[in-house]
């Protein structure tokens, strides 16, 4: 479980995060959503220590990450996997070498054991047999999946995904979402996904935190986000006119059904 308490961060007197608190449970896909520039990636980077917070606490199963010294953080990071927005694969290495890299750095596995683990991770992301490709030879979706394979190669307890669907077609996005969901539930990982992809929100959002105006504006799940009346959330979820029309029609249908239900109930009682 990851817990953040009153995390604040500013850049050049511009407040990006103000007193953000929240709990991210294991085995659930936790989403941090919000518009562009609302501080989603900054929050994730603060949580993993890539950026220093101005104030606040980040607790990984009760361990205060911010209070750790550099050596402790380095050791602790072996428990964290992260998928970056652009996958951040090492250009000079093959797919196999990319996934093998953390294993060779931090484990005492033999070459054969590492290869077995690499093949397992590749199989897990449906990329078996692509060991010898270079990142430049892979499509965007493949790169993201390789990124996930690398992130899970060390059996992390915590998985961070920064906009895993950005730049991908809807079909591949669904594939990536399903993969993240499967891995999270199967290995009981605490997964935090930064996204503004509404499809992901609806598909995999077990716990959703909405950031707005540098604050935690709303918290809920993929069911409550549909029914909320929070105007900022509605503006975010139903951003386009098309989506607004769908919502209006859904509300119309709901009112009509409620009306029918009322008549039937009245008739039944009378």
């Amino acid at each position, binding site marked *: 479980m990851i817990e953040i308490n009153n995390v604040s961060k500013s850049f050049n007197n511009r407040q990006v995060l103000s007193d953000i608190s929240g709990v991210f449970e294991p085995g659930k896909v936790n989403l941090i959503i919000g518009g562009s520039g609302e501080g989603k990636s900054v929050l994730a*980077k603060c949580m*993993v*220590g*890539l950026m220093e917070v101005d104030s606040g606490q980040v607790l990984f199963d009760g361990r205060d990450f911010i209070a750790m010294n550099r050596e402790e953080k*380095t*050791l*602790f*990071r*072996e428990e*964290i*996997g*992260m998928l*970056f*927005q*652009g996958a*951040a*694969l*090492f*250009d000079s290495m093959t797919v196999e070498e990319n996934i093998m*890299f*953390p294993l060779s*750095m*931090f484990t005492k596995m033999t070459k054969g054991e590492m290869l077995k683990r690499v093949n397992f991770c590749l199989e897990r992301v449906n990329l078996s047999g692509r060991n010898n490709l270079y990142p430049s030879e892979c499509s965007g979706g493949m790169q993201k999946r390789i990124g996930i394979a690398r992130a899970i190669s*060390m059996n992390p307890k915590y998985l961070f995904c920064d906009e895993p669907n950005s730049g991908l077609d809807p079909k591949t996005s669904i594939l990536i979402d399903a993969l993240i969901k499967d891995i999270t539930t199967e290995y009981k990982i605490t997964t935090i996904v930064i996204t503004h992809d509404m499809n992901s929100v609806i598909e995999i959002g077990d716990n959703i935190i909405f950031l707005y105006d540098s604050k935690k504006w709303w918290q809920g799940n993929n069911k409550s986000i549909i029914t909320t009346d929070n105007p900022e959330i509605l503006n975010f979820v139903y951003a386009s006119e098309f989506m607004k029309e769908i919502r209006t029609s859904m509300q119309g249908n709901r009112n009509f059904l409620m009306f029918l239900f009322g008549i039937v109930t009245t008739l039944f009682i009378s």
Partner: protein
Amino acid sequence: MGGVIALQTASNMTSPLLPAYTIGYITQSSTILEFSPTIISLILAGKVGSNISSELGSMRVTEQIDALEIMGVNSLSYLVLPKIIAAVMFFPILIIFSMALSLFGGWISLLISNLCSTETYLLGIKTDFKVFNIVYALTKTIVFGFLIASIASFYGYFVKGGSINVGKASTQAVVISSIAILIANFILTQMILL
């Protein structure tokens, strides 16, 4: 380079009082003391410096350095230290090659232009040859190698923004390391030779 030094010395030697082997001597001393270590290091600042800077810069903007940090790898020691060690160790070897090639070039140019015999040229090279000059040149090269690799790494590692900034960082790295080489050359010459 050696060829040009030899030809220019030969063409400017108008006084009959100067012995013919002076051509070889001047080629040898200018190549070993200055041209090989300094000029080749300036070339390497352009070639290797921009390479290091753009490589690290691209890694920074594509979040590859962040990925290393997340894995718990100390990115500075993993990426920068080997580059500095490699530069410090292998630049002197390159400079030795360049010295040999430069002296060979001098001999070839004199042979083609028929300005000096092989024996006289070799005599000039051997005249007043000091091993200390080689040590001095290699010491300078080690310092230049360190400066090139560390300055280029600094500019590449701390790049912010996108690909335009990677290009800018690369240019800055080359300019600053070239200036640093010239200043260090002056200071080292003062310290070691005088």
